[in-house]
């Protein structure tokens, strides 16, 4: 008898999301605690499952009456499995979701009040810039809660929540739960159709979250986000359907007997399957030139959602690539590994270079995410157990670090009246010391600094590449070159990371930021928690490495392992 642990972790948030809605209508922002508890419960379930190394859970969705048709009945087999590869992904997703749930309280208060016209955006005119920096749709000052002093600063008394704002909170937290569970379902699923189901399932709530609470041309941007990710998903679906047709089943984990051989025999279809899956998922991973939706979506999403999109969601593409390629298409995987690696390399550099050209802090982080996805792609491309494990670990390290960074960006937005332009920041470390420390940790995590988890993942990835070089063969030299180039891209990461640190936190504090303060523990606690996690996993990488390698070493594919 299988313990229904993982299915709970996925379904409980979905089932309780209407409850979150009704609680939200009643209690407004306080209902965040409900969301928090639900997600915490699910996270604990995951931890329980991880510590007991439970077998795959399988639930038959279609009873056996379709037994005459294995393919059709396999559509209905819903499996949840937490193994070493899904563990880092799953835990990262839920831990970030749980932490960000609390962070959402002050942020969404700010955003919703702003949207409801209860707070006028602080006009952050700096003496240097001619045009005052304003974000869109400054509503007329309806409640009079804001007084603008003669220096152009706005001080606002915290408006009180009312029925209208409560409804907004309710919507936010209900969608938030759905979104979190969608991501989780994708990572835990063992069936291609189930995987696609959840992959799309997370799209709609996130679309609404961006569209409802986002900034700028949020309608257009959320639509762009939806369409891009949707076409990626559909492409992936094409690949999945073809796989299902060839193997007569959609269950992929553990791969059913004969599936791999059947697939390998379908030589004519393999290129198409691989193309569909890789390209479809690289849209999610935002590998150039399929990345263009990402900077917009991440920049204009409400910041807590950015903190889920970037650290948690886009990397799931990498997870699926690892899963499908290693479990179902091992030979094809080894044929295209270098192509993937080179694409990853391009992604690293492209994202990093574009990050250098940004002024909007959230856009900068978005491009940085693209660059970081390049590491994941490169790690997958090395097709070694080191590289693949590194890619999975990189999801964790990027997740914790980028979540911290986005949350800090959000904190600045809340505290400095919607300020996002880096040009108008500076010297904030005197006003936001804790944030400065946490941002430093997060940036160090991004640039692969030892003692943060970023290093632990990146060295695995690079070691994977160099291991390919060491294996020799005709491509050994090329692997050597691209691996060195990959390591070199961390210099680029350092450049944009430190330059951003300098521009945001160091230097002279501009006049308009003199009233900024760090504020509520709702915001700081998640930031500190994740920053601490960044360091903890850097010092004790075995927490991730152990189960990860255990699974990777046991993958039914001959990845070059260390002897």
């Amino acid at each position: 008898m299988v313990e229904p642990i993982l299915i709970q972790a996925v379904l409980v948030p979905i089932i309780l999301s209407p409850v979150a809605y009704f609680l939200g209508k009643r209690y407004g922002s306080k209902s965040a605690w409900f969301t928090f508890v639900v997600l915490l419960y699910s996270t604990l379930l995951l931890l329980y499952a991880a510590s007991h190394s439970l077998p795959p859970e399988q639930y038959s969705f279609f009873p056996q009456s379709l037994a005459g048709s294995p393919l059709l009945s396999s559509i209905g087999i819903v499996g949840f499995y937490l193994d070493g590869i899904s563990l880092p992904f799953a835990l990262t997703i839920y831990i970030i979701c749980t932490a960000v749930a609390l962070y959402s309280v002050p942020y969404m208060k700010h955003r919703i009040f702003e949207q409801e016209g209860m707070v006028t955006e602080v006009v952050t005119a700096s003496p240097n810039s001619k045009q005052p920096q304003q974000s869109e749709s400054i509503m007329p000052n309806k409640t009079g809660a804001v007084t603008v002093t003669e220096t152009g600063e706005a001080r606002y008394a915290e408006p009180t929540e009312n029925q209208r704002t409560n409804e907004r909170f309710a919507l936010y937290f209900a969608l938030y739960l759905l979104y979190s569970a969608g991501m989780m379902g994708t990572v835990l699923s063992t069936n291609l159709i189930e995987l696609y189901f959840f992959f799309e399932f997370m799209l709609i709530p996130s679309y609404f979250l961006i569209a409802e609470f986002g900034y700028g041309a949020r309608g257009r941007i959320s639509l762009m986000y939806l369409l891009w990710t949707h076409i990626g998903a559909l492409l992936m679906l094409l690949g999945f359907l073809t796989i299902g047709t060839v193997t007569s089943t959609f269950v992929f984990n553990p791969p059913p007997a004969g599936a791999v051989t059947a697939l390998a025999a379908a030589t004519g279809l393999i290129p198409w399957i691989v193309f569909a899956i890789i390209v479809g998922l690289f849209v999610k991973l935002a590998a150039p030139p399929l990345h263009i939706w990402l900077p917009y979506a991440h920049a204009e999403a409400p910041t807590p959602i950015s903190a889920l999109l970037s650290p948690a969601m886009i990397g799931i593409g990498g997870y699926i690539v690892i899963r499908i390629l290693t479990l179902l298409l091992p030979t094809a995987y080894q044929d295209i590994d270098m192509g993937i690696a080179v694409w990853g390399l391009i992604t690293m550099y492209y994202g990093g270079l574009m990050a250098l050209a940004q002024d909007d802090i959230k856009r900068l982080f978005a491009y940085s995410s693209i660059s970081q996805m390049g590491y994941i792609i490169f790690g997958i491309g090395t097709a070694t157990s080191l590289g693949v494990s590194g890619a999975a670990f990189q999801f964790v390290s990027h997740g914790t670090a980028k979540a911290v960074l986005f949350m800090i960006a959000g904190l600045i937005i809340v505290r400095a009246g919607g300020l996002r332009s880096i040009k108008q920041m500076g010297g904030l470390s005197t006003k936001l010391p804790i944030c400065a420390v946490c941002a430093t940790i997060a940036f160090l995590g991004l640039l692969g600094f030892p003692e943060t988890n970023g290093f632990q993942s990146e060295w695995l990835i690079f070691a994977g590449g160099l291991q390919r070089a060491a294996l020799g063969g005709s491509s050994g030299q090329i692997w050597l070159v691209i691996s060195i180039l990959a390591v070199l891209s961390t210099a680029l990461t350092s450049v944009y990371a430190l330059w951003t640190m300098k521009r945001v936190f160091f230097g002279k504090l501009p006049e308009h930021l003199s009233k900024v303060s760090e504020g509520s523990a709702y915001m700081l606690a998640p930031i500190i928690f994740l920053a601490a996690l960044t360091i903890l996993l850097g010092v004790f990488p075995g927490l991730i490495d152990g189960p990860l390698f255990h699974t990777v070493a046991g993958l039914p594919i001959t990845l070059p392992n260390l002897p």
Partner: protein
Amino acid sequence: MAFSLSSCSDLIPNLVWMVPIIGGALSVLAAGFGDRARNYVAIATGFVTALTATLLLLLPEFTTYTLGGGIWDITHVCGVQETWISTPLFTIQAGVLVDPLTAVLALTVSWVSFLILVYSLGYMKGERNLTRYYFLMNFFIGNMLLIVMSDNFLLLFLGWEGVGYCSYALIGFWHSDEMKYWVGTHGETTAGVPEAYSPTNAGMKAFIMTRIGDIAFLVGILLIFAYAHTFDFYKLVQNTSWASDLAASGLLVPAAILIFGGAVGKSAQFPLHEWLPDAMAGPTSVSALIHAATMVNAGVFLVGTVGPIFLIASASLGTGVMFPFFATVAAIGAFTALLAASQAMVHDEVKKVLAYSTVSQIGYMMLGLGVAGLSAPADFSIGFTAGFFHLISQALFKAGLFMCAGWLIHVTESKYASQMGGLRKELKITFIAMMIVALSLAGFPPLSGFWSKDAILGAALQAGGISTIFYIVGIVTALMTAFYSIRLIGIIFAGKKSENIENLEAKGHHIHEAPGTMWVPYVILAGATLVIGILAPIFLQQSLGSLFSKYLANLGVVSPYSFNLGSEALSLSIGFGISVLGIFIAYLAYIRRSISPVAVVNSSPVIYGFYHFFLHRWYINAFYYKVIVYPISRGTTWIFRNFEQKVIEPVNIGAPEFGSDVSGLLRRIQTGIEEEYLFAFGIGIALLIIIFFLFGYVTI
């Protein structure tokens, strides 16, 4: 087995690097009880660290250990390992390693650090954010000791980057970038590149530049890992099959040079040396600790660690396999020594002069280690010992110099030597202490600098061959070194008071001696350089030499220490002569002031040209900015505007537009006229028939 590795109690070795890190954290907690508590905790941490490092020598596992007769005899290394990362594919054991190299460096680092912490008490008094300062200082010390104590590359890299971060954070300690903290002179440019850097900018520059070296280092160790599947130093020595595999791929020497790249970055060697002068934007105590005495020497330590490993590992591949590596080390060391010394001769900013001097002196150390590898295998330990002796000696006198400079800058409120002058009466203690350390730098007997520098030069001379060129470069550099050390002393202490000082005194600022917390540390260091100098003949040969040679013998590089003062008389006398010559020229120009430096510089366009060339840092800094920094920063914006926004983004606009166009076209069919709908119906029938006839199976 060529060596023995005994296990030892893991408490003391681990404490050595843990104490400062824990103490740093404690000092943050102690800040809650007031500044005083925090300062004391921080300094006490430094002291305990120094004590634990000293305790290393008392470890019972060091089987034969006597301090009698000035002889150390540590023949054994000991290490303890814990499993750090355990996976089914590989296990990374990590732990500490105590060998003579470790012990000597741990001692130097911890005691100098302690002195600098004490100095900070006075120097940083009244500054804000000192919690951060003390935490980072202690964290730095911990990481530095981790580098020294670690027994594998991965753990070493942890400390390696840790000190890099501390350096970054401490250079940028005054992160609000007020003008007074900038390094360099405002408005001065080299080929259009500004020469002045804000502290945060300098920190960033330091971090990124050293990181480029670190990347090479990381590639190097990962390459070794790819073949050896271990990071462990002793495992690498134990089983050397990896070296032949690497050599078979032609990667042995490249891997070694890549690892040396890390040392180049961290130790500010050419071509990654440009960050160190700008790193002087940090507090002087930081410069003294990180950018003179400890961190910058980590590169030397690294070469000292990997050099023997590579030598042993490649032993079976025939001699001379590692020649390119050691030649690179020596050449870069020699060239850097000359490069930096030439710049030190002309600069006016006290700390920058000292920074160039540091770069130059580390060049010497690299030269020593390189020469060790170039000489006959039996003579390996000569250069090796010389390099590390110079490391210790430089740590002492350079830290002393910086600390003195720190007080001078504080009391004169100027960072320029030319704005000091005639201070010898007011600042007697500082004057004497600084004189001693400067003479040590100048290589004046019997100070430690004299012995250590000449040990390196002697080793180069003895190695012969290509090393003779390095020897000559070293001698030229020695002349420059002697000149600029005394030049600095002369400008600061001799002659009349400058306008700046007079203005200050007119304003009521009294030029006074440093408080005890400040002068005691640098006086101690001056004393140490003197004492070691006097004891050097014994110290060098009997203690350090025998220690290292036994250590190396234990590793497998068999070479009884044969350095002999008597047989090196030639080298010593040349060294002495050069030193005196340099001191004399500087004396004439800056103390007696019988030669006008300005007149000399202007006397010939060649000299003037050189002067400017040196002053503009050989245009290397400007070159980097023009060729790398500016193109990247402009290039990314260009790519963003012209590729990202003009080529890729239009897809977002173009695709929907395409859809709309198609949509409009299709909608135009829908005219609203029933007639045409029926017509379309007819066309549909025709279309179906055409399809059937063209593609159908049913034959007509």
